[in-house]
């Protein structure tokens, strides 16, 4: 923290405590750019947006004169900032500016070194001390920093500094789980397709290695675990160095965004107050935030509350009333598409509403939403609704509402819950569950469905037959073949229809003999089944000709 803001903070501390509870004065950040062999005009706005999204920073940009022009007038006032982020790789700054920068860091200023900023100022000794590792040196510049056999190795072997293979997505491994920046991050996470900087060397004094990535020789790499994120302590100053982020698309990487946000806060204050988002990338899955926007930067006081407040209103919604709160919930859900973490939080709140004394109209609305965004997390709440009864005829049946969601939610847990509910339900509720199992083509339901063909309730028997026709796997086909000769009247027609579907499915899979056998069998049935069977046979012959 700069001297100035320290003074202000102390002076205003008492006022702030009362007037602005929970809202600290913003940290002041400065991005320096203007020359770079990289696309600084695109990446600086992205950096700014990433910092803005934390809600912690007030961000300025200092742009130097263009390459080849006089640098004499370039004198950013570093001292008034809490953190300076360098997106600069170009001509030397004036001596006065260099000295101001070194003094700023030495006296406690924060610095973030971003990607190609570590290519800059190869002959400026203090700068190289500040960045720790960079490009363009040799064994005289300092060691390579490598992670070998579970520890940091300072490798003094001779050779050049800096390089990378072709861009590819790679896994980053956290090597220091206690540092504020990396605390709470998964041990391994995927970064998007980007340059994997290798062979960096430099003074590397007071360097703390936070994360590495394996530079695979198959990707033109060194075969070493190369430093990706690290910090330097220079005087009282804190430096966070990330080698990631070649261009704007690479900066969509959730891992990049989060480590930059945390690194910048740490450089400015020595602490990290931000939470690790739930959708931080896993060891195998690359994750991006479109528009570089953390979908829930201030989650604890922001969106979650907005949704919960709306859901409180939805709880008492009844048909005929204004549906504005419902519309607003739909808006928030739409905004959350693409963020599994955000959707997960919404899902959780919605499930709470379903378990509450909310109106049937509210619960029906929620089931419509869960039908699209629900996951297996819904199973127990919705399965409980399958066995509930409506309080009157003038409201939707809870089982219909639950199935509206369950039918479209993927997962074996859903199938299992539905199969279990077959045993505990009767009448129309059971028919609905049978229909849903058929829609889901749950092959494990065949055994239960086949016994339901003999059910004394014609609706139940008919539904079981139709479900088997929709499932149409070999077991279902076999069940229908047997049922055909044991049923009569209307049910037999339904069995034949379902059996025809199985034959069509076999024909589509190229199992002509099997399909033909069924068509031949069904030729003996009365109209219109025999017509359909004849048609099936003709279609098979046409396929043969082709």
């Amino acid at each position, binding site marked *: 923290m700069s001297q100035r803001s320290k003074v202000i903070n102390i002076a205003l501390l008492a006022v702030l405590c009362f007037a602005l509870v929970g809202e600290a004065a913003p940290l002041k950040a400065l991005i320096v750019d203007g020359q770079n062999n990289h696309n600084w005009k695109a990446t600086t706005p992205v950096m700014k947006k990433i910092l803005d999204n934390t809600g912690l920073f007030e961000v300025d940009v200092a742009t130097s004169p263009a390459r080849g022009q006089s640098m004499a007038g370039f004198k950013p006032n570093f001292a008034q900032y809490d953190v300076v982020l360098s997106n600069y790789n170009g001509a030397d700054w004036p001596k006065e500016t260099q000295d101001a920068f070194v003094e700023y860091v030495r006296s406690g200023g924060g610095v973030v070194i971003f990607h190609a900023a570590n290519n800059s100022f190869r002959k400026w000794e203090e700068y190289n001390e500040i960045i720790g590792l960079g490009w363009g040196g040799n064994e005289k510049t300092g060691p390579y920093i490598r992670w070998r056999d579970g520890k940091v190795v300072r490798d003094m072997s001779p050779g050049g500094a800096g390089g990378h293979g072709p861009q590819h997505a790679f896994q980053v491994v956290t090597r220091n789980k206690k540092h504020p920046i990396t605390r709470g991050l998964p041990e391994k996470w995927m970064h998007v397709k980007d340059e994997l900087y290798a062979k960096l060397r430099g003074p590397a004094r007071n360097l703390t290695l936070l994360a590495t990535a394996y530079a695979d020789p198959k990707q033109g790499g060194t075969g070493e675990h190369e430093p990706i994120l690290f910090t330097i302590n220079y005087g009282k100053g804190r430096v966070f160095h990330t080698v990631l982020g070649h261009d704007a698309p690479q900066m969509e990487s959730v891992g990049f965004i989060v480590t930059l946000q945390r690194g910048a806060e740490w450089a400015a204050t020595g602490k990290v107050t931000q939470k690790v988002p739930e959708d931080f990338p896993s060891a195998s899955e690359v994750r991006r935030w479109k528009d570089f926007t953390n979908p829930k930067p201030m989650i604890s006081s922001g969106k979650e509350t907005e949704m919960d407040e709306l859901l409180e209103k939805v709880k008492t919604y009844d*048909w*005929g*009333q*204004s*549906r*504005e709160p419902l*519309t607003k919930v739909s808006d928030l859900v*739409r905004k959350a*598409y*693409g963020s599994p973490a955000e959707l997960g939080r919404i899902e959780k709140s919605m499930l709470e509403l379903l378990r509450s004394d909310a109106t049937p109209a509210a619960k*029906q609305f929620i089931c*419509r939403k869960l*039908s*699209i965004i629900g996951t297996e997390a819904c199973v127990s709440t919705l399965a409980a609704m399958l066995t509930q009864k409506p309080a009157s005829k*003038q*409201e*939707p*049946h809870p*089982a*219909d509402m639950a*199935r*509206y*969601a*369950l*039918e*479209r939610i*993927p997962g074996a847990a859903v199938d299992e819950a539905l199969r279990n509910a077959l045993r505990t339900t009767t009448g*129309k*509720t059971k*028919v*609905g569950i049978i*229909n*849903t199992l*058929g*829609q*889901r*083509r*749950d*092959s494990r339901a065949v055994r239960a469905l086949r016994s339901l063909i003999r059910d004394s309730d014609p*609706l139940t028997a008919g*539904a079981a037959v*139709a*479900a088997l026709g*929709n499932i*149409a796997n070999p077991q279902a086909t076999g069940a229908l073949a047997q049922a055909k000769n044991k049923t009569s009247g209307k049910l037999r027609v339904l069995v034949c*229809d379902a059996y*025809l*579907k199985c034959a*069509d*499915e076999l024909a*589509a899979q190229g199992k002509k003999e099997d399909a033909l056998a069924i068509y031949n069998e069904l030729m003996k049935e009365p109209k*219109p089944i025999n*017509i*359909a069977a*004849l*048609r*099936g046979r*003709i279609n098979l012959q*046409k*396929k043969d000709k082709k």
Partner: protein
Amino acid sequence: MAKKTISRRQFLKGATVAAAGVAGFPYFVPSSALGRAGNVAASNRIVMGCIGVGSQGGGNMRGFLGKKEVQVVAVCDVDKGHRDGAKKTVDDSYKNNDCKAYLDFRKLLERKDIDALSMALPDHWHSIIYVAGARAGKDIYGEKPLARTIHGGRAICDAVHRYGRVWQTGSWQRSQRNFHHACELVRNGRIGKVHKVEVGLPTGGSTDNKPVQPVPEGLDWDFWLGPAPWVPYRGICHWNWRWMMDYSGGQLTDWAGHHIDIAHWGLGLDYTGPSEIEGEGVYPRDGIYDAPTAYKFTCKYDNGLTMIVANDRQQPKGMGTIWYGEKGWVYVKRGKLEAEPESILDERIGPDEIKLYENRDHQRNFLDCVKSRKLTITPVEIAHRSISVGLLGEIAMLLGRKLKWNPEKEIFLNDEQANRMLSRPMRSPWHL
């Protein structure tokens, strides 16, 4: 969820479709021979039942009543007013009291004497009732749009093909001279290769939050709702169901079966669909209607073509279909046909050029095909592909993102949520 093997490749080429429509089936033999005075021998009449006999269905029924070769013997509606009115219209026409009126369509479908059905119901009922009609062995004149969901439409196509039924969709614009001529000009390259087509459909509206109220005498509200989620009656039912997404998709899906259908016809895209869809809809934020009032979405086809579907206020030409080619454009809507250069409008289609199905009486075409067993001018697969564009646009707008679509397999690529929207769970006991 397990995916079913696609079983319709044999239907996807025009020539094969025609052959498939005829092969293996005897000429039409009417199921019954009810006595009736007229020019057409009783034994040669098509016996028809009409399901859904409100505004559109009533109009269709009266049209069929005017055809000598048709004998309407049954009507069906869940509203007693419609039902009784339709029976009276039929009986007055035949000067007898023979027409049977049904509340439950399943009873009507059980009748063995009925050869063909005229059906006009809210969209959310289409898949169940069209499939049931085909399964009962009836030929069908069914209203557009074919179905409320893409899976529903596919199930209808499968059932119609499986049972070898003759199908005509109420997309009657294909039986109009100006639409036919426009499409033949475009198909035969009169404006060169087409790179863009704009389709303008009506703009929707909104209303207030109607209070819950008693169900009118004679309306079986629960049956009317059928597979849709149960809600209390609020004064919106006949006709205006189309502005509520439980039952329809608003002006977009109401008109997709017309002007998108025509756009496909002119381009020879009757048996495929777009591969990319992206757009934006404006939805009423309050009130009982929830279908989009304004909408605009862009479809990209694999051949490089772009189709922009929007409500008329967002289209340069307003309502209708306009194809833009290398050499000019053709614009068609009801009662209008324009082109640039204008001179192509006078050009004749030569003997060696593509001739599109020509017909000037939509209902007669259905009756002719019931007898000949040939394909109608708007067969079921074409109707499915026309409404699919509207339904794909609806899903893309609801999700608010670009979707990739495989028109062959009929699935979205890499979008699990979008794929959920291809079908809708049905209220018990209804199912496909």
